[in-house]
């Protein structure tokens, strides 16, 4: 690893940090129902959409908000499923792709609507242009919009306001955030070399006289929303490792910035909405610190490379290059693997299965913690849940009733949070054990790494990330159905329970801060927050990590 590549990573992080606050303030204004300048710009178009869609921008109760979220998403999953099942007979299918089989369509429909984009098919041969450009792009817009709506409703609850209107929030997320940014970045990607065509695959006669068929398609429009919406599903099989989906260091930079854009801005949006930017800043700094530590660990282990190969006496200054692309290099690949799992995107520009064991453990840890920024909206709500836990535990230690933003945290909220907290390890560890016991033949790498493959798949599904250790033979009914269920529960259980927490807090009378109140906008709180995240994460997952990546590293 060169000094230059370290500087490139520092510069990338710096740009992301500088963008976070202005974008956060924009988000706060974009979801404010009161009269403001943005409403005058976007209002007429949105009111037209509201009218065609048949709803008004009126406050829903917390229950109706949650019901609208869950039911609308379920209906859309069904619609996506149907198109995938019958894509073979539908138009815009120049490659003659067949209908998707039921278990794979089940998995794919949930996967894209749950913002996961775990893909058990290969983009070149498994889906038609119609499926890619309509139902998959549709899901890639709607699922982050749903996540963003959830975050906004949750923050409104913490500040004592009503929930808002789910459908209005969904449309606002699309018109004010996702569509404009996706459109501009899609064009930037085209200028960097990403194809955008509806022509079928090209045929070339190579220099050595062979025939080469080159798959292409409307990739740029897909790529932009894939990164911006923290979706992560690739148009082509190997995702952003494919030269068409990531042609240069510049496209790699833009992808990383898009992944972080909204999720790193949400703490500031939250600060603005609860009336104290300091509240948001302390969470932002805490998460950024964890991100930098993760990046450091990943870079140091990847640049050291794989001792097994280095011992062959070849020149290995480039680091571990198996599964990586030359134009991106080892440093930007390792960095991308950290960002894509921190922001729960799941796009990959290197094959995570081929990462060095500790280099592969970092993405795994990011997904298990699910609080190092986290995915679009849901990640930040998860962060706020940990903040509530931190306040609660601190309150217990000093023997006071814990308060967060002036609202008492009591038994009801903590019960809901405890359920949410327990669901995740349950969804990861139990299915992993079942898979290892019943489907060992689908695991492609021998030894400790095989355990990591299964563990990674379910962690990715439960955290709605979508990256994978792709050597796993996951295109079977068992993996399709099991990860489909895990993705669905991993997404919607916590959405409902945390909306219930927000509703319960919103209904409480705020108590004025006194001298004994535990402040949540100080560095002290930031440290407690990070401590709680790490303790809960370590207690839950450390044994599995020891058996997987750590054991593998020790055997190299």
């Amino acid at each position, binding site marked *: 690893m060169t000094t230059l590549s370290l500087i490139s990573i520092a510069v990338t992080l710096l740009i992301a940090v500088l963008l976070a606050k202005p974008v956060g303030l924009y988000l706060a204004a974009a979801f404010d129902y009161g009269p403001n300048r943005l409403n005058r710009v976007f209002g007429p178009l949105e009111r037209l959409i509201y009218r065609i869609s048949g709803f008004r921008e009126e406050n829903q109760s917390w229950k109706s908000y949650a019901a609208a979220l869950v039911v609308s998403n379920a209906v859309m999953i069904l619609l996506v499923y149907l198109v995938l099942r019958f894509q073979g007979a539908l138009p815009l299918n120049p490659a003659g792709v067949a209908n998707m089989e039921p278990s794979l369509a089940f998995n794919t429909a949930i996967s894209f609507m749950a913002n996961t984009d775990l893909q058990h098919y290969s983009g070149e041969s498994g889906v038609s242009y119609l499926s890619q450009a309509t139902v998959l792009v549709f899901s890639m817009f709607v699922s982050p919009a749903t996540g963003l709506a959830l975050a906004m409703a949750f923050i409104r609850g913490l500040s004592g306001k009503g929930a808002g209107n789910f459908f209005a929030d969904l449309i606002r997320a699309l018109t004010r955030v996702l569509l404009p940014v996706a459109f501009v970045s899609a064009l930037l990607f085209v200028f960097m070399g990403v194809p955008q065509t509806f022509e079928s695959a090209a045929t070339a006669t190579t220099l050595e006289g062979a025939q080469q068929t080159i798959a292409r398609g409307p990739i740029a429009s897909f790529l932009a929303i894939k990164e911006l919406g923290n979706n992560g599903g690739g148009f082509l099989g190997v995702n952003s490792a494919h030269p068409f989906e990531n042609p240069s260091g510049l496209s790699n930079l833009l992808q990383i910035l898009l992944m972080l854009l909204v999720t790193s801005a949400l703490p500031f949006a939250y600060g603005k909405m609860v009336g104290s930017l300091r509240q948001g800043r302390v969470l932002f700094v805490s998460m950024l610190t964890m991100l930098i530590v993760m990046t450091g660990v990943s870079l140091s282990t990847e640049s050291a490379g*794989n001792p097994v190969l280095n011992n062959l006496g070849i020149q290995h200054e480039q680091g571990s290059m198996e599964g990586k692309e030359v134009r991106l290099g080892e440093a930007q690949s390792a960095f991308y693997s950290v960002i894509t799992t921190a922001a729960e995107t799941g796009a990959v520009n290197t094959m995570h299965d081929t990462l060095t064991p500790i280099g592969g453990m970092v993405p795994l840890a990011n997904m298990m913690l699910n609080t190092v920024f986290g995915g679009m909206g849901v990640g930040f709500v998860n962060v706020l849940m940990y903040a509530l836990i931190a306040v609660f535990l601190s309150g217990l230690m000093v023997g006071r009733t814990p308060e967060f933003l002036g609202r008492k945290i009591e038994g009801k909220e903590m019960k809901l949070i405890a359920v949410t907290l327990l669901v995740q390890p349950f969804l990861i560890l139990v299915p992993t054990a079942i898979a290892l016991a019943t489907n060992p033949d689908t695991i492609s790498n021998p030894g400790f790494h095989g355990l990591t493959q299964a563990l990674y798949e379910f962690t990715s599904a439960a955290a709605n990330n979508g990256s994978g250790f792709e050597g796993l033979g996951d295109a079977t009914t068992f993996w399709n159905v099991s990860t489909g269920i895990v993705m669905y529960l991993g997404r919607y259980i916590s959405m409902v329970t945390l909306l219930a927490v927000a509703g319960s807090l919103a209904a409480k009378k705020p108590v004025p801060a006194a001298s004994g109140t535990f402040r949540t906008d100080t560095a002290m709180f930031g440290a407690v927050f990070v401590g709680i995240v790490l303790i809960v994460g370590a207690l839950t997952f450390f044994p599995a990590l020891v058996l997987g990546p750590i054991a593998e590293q020790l055997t190299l």
Partner: protein
Amino acid sequence: MRIIWVTLRTTFTVAIVCCLIYNIAVWAVAQSAAPDKADGSLIENAEGQVVGSRLIGQNFTDPGYFHGRVSSIDYDANGSGTPNYAPSNPELLKRTQESVTSWQAENPGVPVSELPIDLVTNSGSGLDPHISPEAAQAQVPRVSAATGLPAEELERMIEDNTQGRSLGLFGEPAVNVLELNLDVQAAVEAR
């Protein structure tokens, strides 16, 4: 029931905006502003025949051409992929040892200590169009012997086809193997 009805109507409007208008708007601007890139950066020879894409690697086995990286899919660009070998997988060591052995046979003058790791490892996509400048440099003696082109001329071609880091900072310097070999081919034909 009302939620389902609103959902269906919202799905309809969102589909019009996000699928139809968005995709087609990006497509229309892309095709008019940068049609070559939007179609996949295809390269045509003097006869107008497509010989490949600037962004997609090809299989090169002729000693008179520069070779690209290991590809488990033999550069079949109708798909993409790798064998996903874990660092601890014995198959990885076996395949790499074989690559090193055949390198020694094909490049007798160049010691293994000058063989860069990118030439004996599988790329992420199986379609990597690039190799590192060192990996191109290491092949100069072989290509020179096979084609009769002087080493200095080949080194100049490598320099011409090396793309630096984006903005001088992002990514790594890389040599485009197909474009380099097109230059080699042209020089051989011109003799």
